[in-house]
């Protein structure tokens, strides 16, 4: 069976393409540049040049595909042109859905994010919980708006399932949006020197292989119009670095940086970016988020999709081995 994967050079998309190819699917891998170094070569993967913002190129790519995995997104922390988030995440998603529907695609899996819930309070968030904060981050806001597009299409009778990965880590390249990969590889090189605040803030880390399996299970078993959180363990910053230390055997002294200092620095960075146009290292909306936990429950995916969580220590072991070889 022919399937289309958008974002085939992305952290999730490339591994998903490979897994599908190994399972015998004919994968059309949509990418803007088919010479991209992260594109995986496999006999069942056919690279297709295209851009979700150019509808014609999408139409060509989607021909003959029965299923579409839409993983392409603007997931970077910062863009020079802030409208890029809306263009890629909202308009791009609308394009993919419209063209897939017209081309007679049977099923679509849309890759959203746990960022549509964002900060949590006491208990881990699950699919029916409300968002409690505003949307200061363009990425989260536009992914939320894209989910509204998905809901509209689902109401029109198109089979579409949304998956919401949390913070994804694993055996893959350190891309610009692979935040965890950046932190781990910096730590291994002795370049990561601080822990924000007390380090007790908790976030949810999903192992790449689990997330990819979750995508394929969502295509097979997911109910149309539903969302499934694909997460992992809830881990504090302190535990995160303790595990990296134990697994890698490398010990680096980390300084607890007060959140106030990070906040001050982030405003400075914002002004720097406004004046010079240089990419910021950190922005105030991210500093604000460090005050909160981001805990998510994958129970729905576990019971309904057979989703499986790799223990964090095991996942980190494999990630560190991969990064050491790369």
């Amino acid at each position, binding site marked *: 069976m022919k399937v289309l994967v958008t974002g085939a050079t992305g952290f999730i998309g490339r591994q998903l393409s490979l897994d599908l190819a190994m399972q015998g699917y004919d994968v059309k891998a949509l990418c803007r540049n088919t010479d991209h170094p992260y594109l995986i070569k496999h006999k069942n993967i056919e690279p297709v040049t295209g851009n979700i913002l150019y509808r014609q190129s999408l139409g060509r790519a989607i021909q003959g595909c029965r299923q579409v995995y839409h993983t392409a997104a603007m997931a970077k922390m910062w863009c020079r042109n*802030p*409208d890029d988030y*809306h263009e890629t995440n909202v308009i791009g998603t609308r394009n993919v859905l419209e063209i897939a529907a017209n081309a007679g695609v049977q099923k679509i899996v849309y890759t959203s994010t746990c960022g549509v819930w964002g900060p949590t*309070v*006491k*208990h881990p968030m699950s699919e*029916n*919980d*409300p968002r*409690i*904060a*505003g*949307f*200061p981050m*363009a990425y989260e*806001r536009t992914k*939320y*708006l894209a989910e*509204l597009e998905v809901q509209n299409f689902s109401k029109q009778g198109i089979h579409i399932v949304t998956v919401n990965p949390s913070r994804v880590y694993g055996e893959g390249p350190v891309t610009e949006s692979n935040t965890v990969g950046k932190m781990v590889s910096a730590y291994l090189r002795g370049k990561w020197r601080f822990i924000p605040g007390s380090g007790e803030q908790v976030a949810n880390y999903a192992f790449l292989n689990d997330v990819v399996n979750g995508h394929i299970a969502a295509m097979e078993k997911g109910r149309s119009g539903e969302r499934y959180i694909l997460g992992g363990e809830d881990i504090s910053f302190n535990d995160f670095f303790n595990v990296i230390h134990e697994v890698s055997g490398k010990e680096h002294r980390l300084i607890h940086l007060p959140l106030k200092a990070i906040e001050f620095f982030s405003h400075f960075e914002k002004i720097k970016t406004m004046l010079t146009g240089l990419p910021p290292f950190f922005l105030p909306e991210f500093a604000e988020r460090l005050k909160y936990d981001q805990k998510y429950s994958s129970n729905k995916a576990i019971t309904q999709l057979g989703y499986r969580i790799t223990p964090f220590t095991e996942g980190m072991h494999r990630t560190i081995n991969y990064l050491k070889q790369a």
Partner: protein
Amino acid sequence: MINQTAIITGASEGLGKSFAIELASRQINLVLVSLPSSGLPELASFIRKNFEVKVNYLEIDLTLAESYPAIFNYLSDEQITAHLLINNAGLGNWSWFEDLNIGFYKKQIELNVITPVLLTRLFLAQTDTSATSYILNVGSLGGLFVVPKKQVYGATKSFIRYFTKCLQLELHGSNVKISLLSPGGINTKPELLVMNNKLKGISKATIMEPGHVARIAVDGLLKGKKEIIPGMINRMLVLLNSLLPDSVKEIIIRQRLATIIKS
């Protein structure tokens, strides 16, 4: 001390939802009021679970006359005395007067004017006079400045300003504190944010996050502040407004109007 209870109208999203979270985090019980199928049951169960306060909710349309007594009949049936009333529900617009139909304006005036007035009246009738009660009326900086394309909205918020200021005089010395919240732009519904994203300069700098506005508002309310203007730039604008002569303000607004017509 027993926990206090707050009624919040328009609680399902935006600033109303932020009020709910902010008050719950201060261990205040909630009665949430919003339209049916706006996600109130999910919000209520989330708040109960995460903040361990009592949350009741009512899914009703506040433009219907029977809704006002219905809220307070429900409270007395449940033996709840409300200590705080957050008159938050409202309907905004940004369009030329002739572009919307009379049904919209009727609804807007009902929700922005009639609802807070009648709820305040019924709330005062049930307060426990031995304890302090609080009313927060959500106005707008738009109630102070004349902003084109906000004709009816701005007028309803001017009404709220007068109404609140007058009640402050009438209730002076009583056990009821009433505050006016005059926010500038707030990043509420992401569906609206596409527009806020396009704002530049001062207009952009006045936009605030709902959680931040709610925190400042509740602080001010509990301190008994008469008017709460969140944000330093907004406070400067208000100061500037009181200093500038009317003729200068008119020139500024006309210039602004000219750029709006061009866009």
